[in-house]
């Protein structure tokens, strides 16, 4: 076997946790968008690794990974559209400033 499953799982866990922390810490919306991409990629790696090692005979994992890429793209376009709108209203894209709706 070309290697064991564990390093892949570890890598994807690291990627996901980095992404999540990035979303919570960084205030810039676009950076947050990048972090979401990071999380999605982590999940794809995890999916591919599991499909290779613990599931034999079906490539559904890899098909799903491809779909994830497509979905991420769609999501990013909508997100950028909205961020563009916020920039027009708030003149800055800082997540801390978006507190008009609260309570």
């Amino acid at each position: 076997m070309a290697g064991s499953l564990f390093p892949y799982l570890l890598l994807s866990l690291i990627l996901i946790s980095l992404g999540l922390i990035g979303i919570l810490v960084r205030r810039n919306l676009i950076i947050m968008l990048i972090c979401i991409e990071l999380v999605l990629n982590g999940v794809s790696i995890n999916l591919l690794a599991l499909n290779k090692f613990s599931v034999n005979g079906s490539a559904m994992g890899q098909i799903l990974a491809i779909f994830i890429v497509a979905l991420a793209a769609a999501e990013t376009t909508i997100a950028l559209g909205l961020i563009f709108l916020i920039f027009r209203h708030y003149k800055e894209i800082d997540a801390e400033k978006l507190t008009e709706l609260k309570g």
Partner: protein
Amino acid sequence: MIIYILPEILTFLMAVFFLLSAFKKISMETLHKTGMFFSIINILIILFTINLNGLFFYGTYKIDFFSQSIKFILAVGLFFIIFMADKRIENTIKKNYGEFLFFLFSSNLGMMMLSSALEFITLFLSLELSSYTMFVLVGFLKNKKISAEAGIKYLFIGAVASALTLYGYSIIFSYFGDTSLQAMRIGSMFMMKDVILYIGFIFFLTAFFFKLAILPFSFWAPDVYQGASTNVTAYIATVSKVAGVAVLLRIFVYFFPIFADQEKILILISILTMTFGNLVAVQQKELKRLLAYSSIAQAGYMLVGLVMFNKSGMSSTLFYVTAYLVMNFTVFLVIDQVEKEKGSTELTALKGLSQRAPLLSLSLLLALLSLGGVPPFVGFTGKWFIFSSAINKGYLTLVLIAFLNSVISVYYYLLVARQAYLFMPDEKEKMKVTVPVRVYSYFSIVFIIVMGFYPAPLLNWAEKAIRYLVG
């Protein structure tokens, strides 16, 4: 074969038509009329295909009485929304009404496919389709600051939720190999269930909790309900809830063997959701925000029904969610009429409504009391079935907590109703109410009272749908 998936195809074509209409100068009224016409055709087609049965696309797409009836409800919900978005709507929507309808129809298409999807990839794709279109709908009011803010919040929380779902699914996938839910059910019969699988399952559920606004991922609801335009909020609050419940019904049927005796965690989540929704709703001064928290609380009650993993629990949840659609839509309709009249959705905007629009305020009162679970109305009967299925599994404390929660909910629903009945209106003259709204109010009053007192028709329909689902 075409007949079976005719509703989906038609909805897709309608969506494309509205997309193209954006380029031509078509007036808002004609678009509104065509939209209404198309949704009526949609309803008729679904009615036509209601009793069909079949499995398509290599077993990933199931058409049965359950999925067709869910599609019927979604189509009726869409019709209500379009009929509400009449000419007095905000002018940003009025100017690009075509795109508005395009997103509405595509989101409806996503939800329709969601109710029939039997395989994870189709399921996830239709879920994302409906979510993404709703992100756009929320941010549709370009000129309003809060709409953009609501949109971005809705998107980010949605994105995180779907990412976690994918991660959860990857764990589940490693156990079964095949993405179709049927394989999972058979596979899980004889395999040893360990902790990792359950953790994977909880992560898997996050996107659906996000859809239904159940506690871990429900914080978006107040801001989005308040930020979006009232029509879009109505759409999110009613139709997407029905779709969410449908997909969870589908999932829990197939995941039942894995999850047979592990429902304690889900019960805890439902109690937390109920209590969170009711407690915070008491504070709210703004109508739409109050309704957001109330919809979180209602989602808690629905989760109780879902989590019971037995036929009666599921049929009562389906009954409750249908009734919830009608009740919630009535309240949103009244808020929409008042907002168009007064321009504000503050609690005080309803002041003296009973003098100015007696019919509207009566339907508002009945809908609110029914949401609060007050007996002669359908809300109570729905709760009664859910909790009697819950108590059949011996959860007495859960039922007591739920009933006490509904007592708190009666308090803030009465806070809204008292504005209409106890105070004198500022202006004296009567509020003009268009005929369709008047017809709908009569329909909702009759529905709420009759279905509350004699629920057999709705209940039999729900049970038949669940029989097909489990069947």
